[in-house]
């Protein structure tokens, strides 16, 4: 079953234009000018139940607007969507009982009173029975180690502590779909990895579907099996993280350390017929670039028997680089051309 189904979703905002200067301001008093901005341009995707999906894109790409439509906050301009079996904006109050939402930059907890009081209130708001609430709270508190924090007012919590409490607040009613908007923003590495682990466990144990937006690609690498990438309101990539790396990674690099000086010509000679590129690091080191369609082991096989090797290091292209290059090209449609361009660039460097 699909948790989220989106078809040709579009959102257009009317933005007021402010004319410049005093004259412009007076003119605006009597006649306003508007420009239409389409934040989300006819996107379609489906997310099956139990999947963790990363929703990424640069600032202003339309991520937040999509999330807000999926959670029922905004009414779409056109297109259809179904989340957990509901049309979010039509039956909002019924619908939101099945979802949890965390906005990383905003708190849903009461500032001045103990965290537990906020939880109690949310229990009433979400109509969770006392028993279910207790069971669920105990589980979450133990898992996120919040025992000592429960009676502290939110204003006395650190950002990391607060974020863990926000997660509890969003999960008390055991939602089947969880939306996270920048859940790890501003947190330190320890808390980040704790939260990632927690989300992963929750997805495994309860089958919770998770859609998260983030600028931190480590989140994506740690959590998501699937990535949807947005640029200027359009989906430019939708698929597995591995696929993304496959399509966009231009190849791998292997770094050799030799026991005695090895000439570049010698290395090239050993790999004749293979589309690889060698470069020398220093007298005792060399690097080889291997395109994706070639097995690393084949290349290694040719070298290992011949040279005196002290160390080998395989370097994968990391997601950060891939994403950056996609953003720069503005499209994931033609990876081949881009890859070729990248390769040319590399070759140029090696010459």
């Amino acid at each position: 079953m699909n948790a989220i189904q989106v078809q040709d979703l579009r959102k257009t905002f009317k933005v007021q234009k402010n004319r410049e200067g005093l004259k412009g301001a007076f003119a605006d008093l009597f006649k306003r000018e508007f420009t239409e901005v389409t934040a989300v341009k006819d996107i379609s995707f489906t997310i099956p139940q139990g999947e963790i999906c990363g929703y990424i894109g640069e600032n202003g790409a339309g991520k937040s607007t999509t999330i807000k439509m999926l959670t029922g906050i905004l009414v779409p301009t056109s297109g259809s969507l179904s989340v957990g079996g509901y049309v979010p904006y039509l039956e909002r109050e019924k619908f939101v009982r099945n979802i949890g939402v965390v906005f990383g930059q905003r708190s849903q907890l009461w500032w001045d009173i103990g965290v537990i009081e906020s939880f109690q209130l949310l229990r009433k708001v979400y109509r969770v029975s006392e028993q279910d609430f207790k069971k669920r709270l105990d589980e979450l508190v133990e898992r996120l180690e919040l025992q000592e924090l429960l009676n502290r007012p939110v204003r006395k919590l650190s950002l990391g502590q607060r974020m863990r409490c926000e997660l509890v607040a969003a999960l008390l009613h055991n939602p089947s779909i969880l939306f996270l908007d920048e859940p790890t923003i501003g947190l330190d590495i320890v808390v980040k990895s704790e939260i990632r682990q927690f989300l992963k466990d929750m997805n495994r144990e309860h089958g919770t579907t998770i859609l998260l937006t983030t600028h931190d690609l480590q989140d994506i690498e740690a959590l998501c099996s699937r990535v949807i990438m947005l640029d200027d309101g359009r989906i430019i990539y939708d698929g597995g993280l591995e696929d993304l790396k496959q399509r966009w990674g231009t190849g791998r690099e292997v770094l050799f350390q030799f026991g005695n000086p090895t000439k570049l010509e010698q290395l090239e000679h050993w790999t004749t017929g293979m589309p690889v590129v060698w470069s020398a690091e220093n007298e005792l080191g060399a690097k080889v670039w291997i395109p994706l369609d070639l097995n690393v082991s084949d290349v290694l096989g040719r070298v290992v028997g011949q040279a005196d090797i002290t160390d080998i290091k395989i370097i994968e292209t990391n997601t950060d680089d891939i994403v950056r290059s996609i953003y720069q090209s503005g499209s994931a449609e033609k990876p081949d051309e881009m890859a070729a361009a990248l390769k040319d660039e590399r070759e140029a460097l090696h010459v």
Partner: protein
Amino acid sequence: MSDKLETAVSSSAGGSSAGGPQESSRRLLMGAYLDFIRIRFLTMLAYRVNYYSGILIYSLNIGVNYFTWMAIYGKGESLGGFSATQMTSYVAVSWMARAFYFNNLDREISTDIRDGSIAIQFIRPYNYVLVKMMQGLGEGIFRFMLFMIPGMAIAMLLFPVQLPTELSAWVGFLVMLFFSFLINSQINVITGLSAFFVENNEGMMRMKRVVVDLFSGLVVPISLFPGWLSSILNFLPFQAITYLPGSVFTGRVQGVGIWNVLGVQVFWFLVLLIPIIWLNHAARQRLFVQGG
């Protein structure tokens, strides 16, 4: 704002040979201060809904006050030295004045203090209090020109409000109005800066508003208060905001009396500078020594 500042930079750079660097930087700063007026004016202008409803509500205010006083006068004898006609123009004028002198500087300043942004304001190369006054002036000019004048025009069409016709009365009124603005803003600044020393000055701000509305003569002309109260009010700055200029404008005070009124306003303006300078100094001390 930045483009205006830039043009100020280039023009003063050209003239620096004549005035010297000191002179030109002073002129630059003056330009910046004037710009605060302009920016606030433009900001107010940006809110269209506020503008239209503002005119409507201002004319309604004048109308309601007019009829209330007509009902109070009933058969038209005089109250507290005001004839019915004088009273109606007094009411109209005091609301017109309020449009100009009213601002929320107290609230703005105490918000700046409470959220800590005042620290940034204090390290900028301008005088914070002066900037606030300029912003208040921008707001006043806006309300006066765009709420009050149209509001008054509508009110005069609908109700028989009478305003003086001599030019001199208007010139005098505008000068006194400017002092009304200064004195009221000074009181606001003092109330606002008190947030540095009082934990919650919300109560103070509300109290100040009631006191100013009541004791400045906006709600009731001071001469209508019981004798003991009006004689106390003679020694307070509030009458200089509405009551005194209003009395001049309605022709109740004439000749030398006019200069006396102006003198009282200047006096209070100077006196109120003292606590502001002191508070500003103390606030800086507190901010930089104790770190907010």
